[in-house]
């Protein structure tokens, strides 16, 4: 492999990591409250607002069912509004964030719904407010599940980021398509795939390890 290729791969890896990290961070920022809301606003729950819950649920599902590549193209005007441009790595962060937010919200909702209802009852019984219950009970208790969910989201984002080459977002996927496929450089394609595999493995094992450390439900030797 030529030094030029290595330089290209390193550069694209940097772009991928940047896009994924920034979009994962922003999507978590929006996805966490959204997920908490979805998990607590059903009928008879802490912030009971069944109608709003249903409407938000529909929006979340709609976003999640839109194929990512269509989402990228469809929201170009919005991307331009936010990022000032519709082309490039920064512009790619906008559709990545929008695709990841409802995904993360659903994962966090799932993790929070796993928390034993008895804990909510106990917290209400000692006088905790709904916000205190979220902050002091639900999120800490759901944390291992939330971490696993975020790990899954980051892995998915690595996959999504391969498609943002379509809007000049760069990154590993773009490199693989342009060099590996269009310029007939199978070794480049292979290298890209290997780097992605390593990244996914690394993210997954860091996430697993963190979740395990946070999980006090199981006795540690």
């Amino acid at each position, binding site marked *: 492999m030529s030094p030029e290729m290595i330089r290209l791969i390193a550069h694209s890896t940097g772009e991928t990591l940047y896009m994924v990290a920034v979009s994962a961070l922003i999507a978590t920022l929006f996805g966490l409250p959204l997920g908490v809301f979805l998990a607590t606003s059903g009928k008879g729950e802490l912030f009971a607002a069944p109608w709003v819950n249903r409407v938000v649920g529909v929006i979340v599902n709609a976003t999640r069912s839109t194929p990512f590549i269509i989402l990228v193209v469809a929201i170009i005007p919005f991307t331009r509004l936010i990022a000032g441009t519709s082309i490039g790595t920064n512009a790619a962060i906008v559709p990545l964030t929008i695709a990841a937010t409802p995904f993360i919200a659903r994962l966090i909702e799932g993790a929070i719904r796993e928390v034993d209802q008895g*804990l909510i*009852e106990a*917290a209400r*019984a*000692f*006088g*905790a407010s709904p916000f205190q219950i979220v902050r002091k009970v639900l999120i800490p*208790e759901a944390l291992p599940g939330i971490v696993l969910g975020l790990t899954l989201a980051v892995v998915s984002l690595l996959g999504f980021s391969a498609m943002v080459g379509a809007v000049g977002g760069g990154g590993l996927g773009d490199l693989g398509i342009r060099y590996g496929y269009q310029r007939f450089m199978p070794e480049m394609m292979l290298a890209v795939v290997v780097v992605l595999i390593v990244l996914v493995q690394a993210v997954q094992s860091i996430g697993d390890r963190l979740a395990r450390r*946070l999980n006090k439900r*199981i006795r540690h030797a």
Partner: protein
Amino acid sequence: MNAPLGYLGSEPAQRLIPAAPIVRLEKVSKTFPGRDGQPVTALREINLSVPQGSILGVIGRSGAGKSTLIRLVNGLEKPSSGKVIVDGADIAALPEAALRHARRSIGMIFQHFNLLSSRTAADNIALPLEVAGYDKAEIRTRVEELLALVGLSDKRNRYPSELSGGQKQRVGIARALATKPKVLLSDEATSALDPETTRSILDLLTKINAELGLTILLITHEMAVIRNIAREVAVIEGGHIVEQGDVFEIFTRPQHEVTRSFLADESGRALPPYVANHLRAEASPGSQAVIRIGFRGPHATDPVLARLAREHGIEANILSGAVDEIAGRPFGTLVVGVPERSLAAALDFLNKPGLDTEVLGHVA
């Protein structure tokens, strides 16, 4: 048991000064919307008073409405009608913020402990204090006191998954006591524990009641719990309180079918199968009459059968029996068989205060 007999015959001292009720339910009913649109009535016109400093047990089968009842007291459930007064405040009428404040003076413990798995024992106990806005130093001292009270000082940094059931419930009790409540609600707190651990948790609750003067309202389906710690009992069935009063009185002279069924689970009350299977309503040639004799208070240790034999020449055949303690007072049950011809004389002899006799039937 070791108290002088004179005491056993009289009413317990605390009954002489009627304490003001700290919890009072007045004509409380609760209906839930049912699955098929038909409302389900969980509680009907419940009246219940829990005197300050007492231990009142509510016993009932599952589905009798006891969980709903205890949840009305701290406002986890709202009554459909009626009033729930705790320490002078109408719990059902309080706005949300005031209710949260009121709940700090009503502790609650649960069957499955409901501890946060992500917090250590000490941090679980600290949680209600954090929620109530205590500062860090106050929380630390209070948590230490509570750990010592429940005997878990050496487990302060353990997570619930590292504790036994009994230890978890001790943490639950400490957490419930953190904000110095006046009332402790116990929701089947020992139902997930083995008998020995149950005993130690009940001892702890008794100690807390005596030392802190804390009023305890507990619900259970276990007779042993009522017998060991309650002074007053309410028997609940189908959303009604069917019987209510002093534990010893209620359980030595049960009036209601449900009360009897709880006692039947107890040793000595139930007929052994070899008697039950042959029991007939009518006497037949050569049959024996089966009598259940309940001995209450000081008579529980009287040699009644010996006197029956000596003074009347009636030899009673013991079929089953036990001497037990209810609410700290001895109580015995004997099931005996006597020859049919001696039945009248035996009943006559046994007809005296402190003894309850009941002819159950006849066995050939």
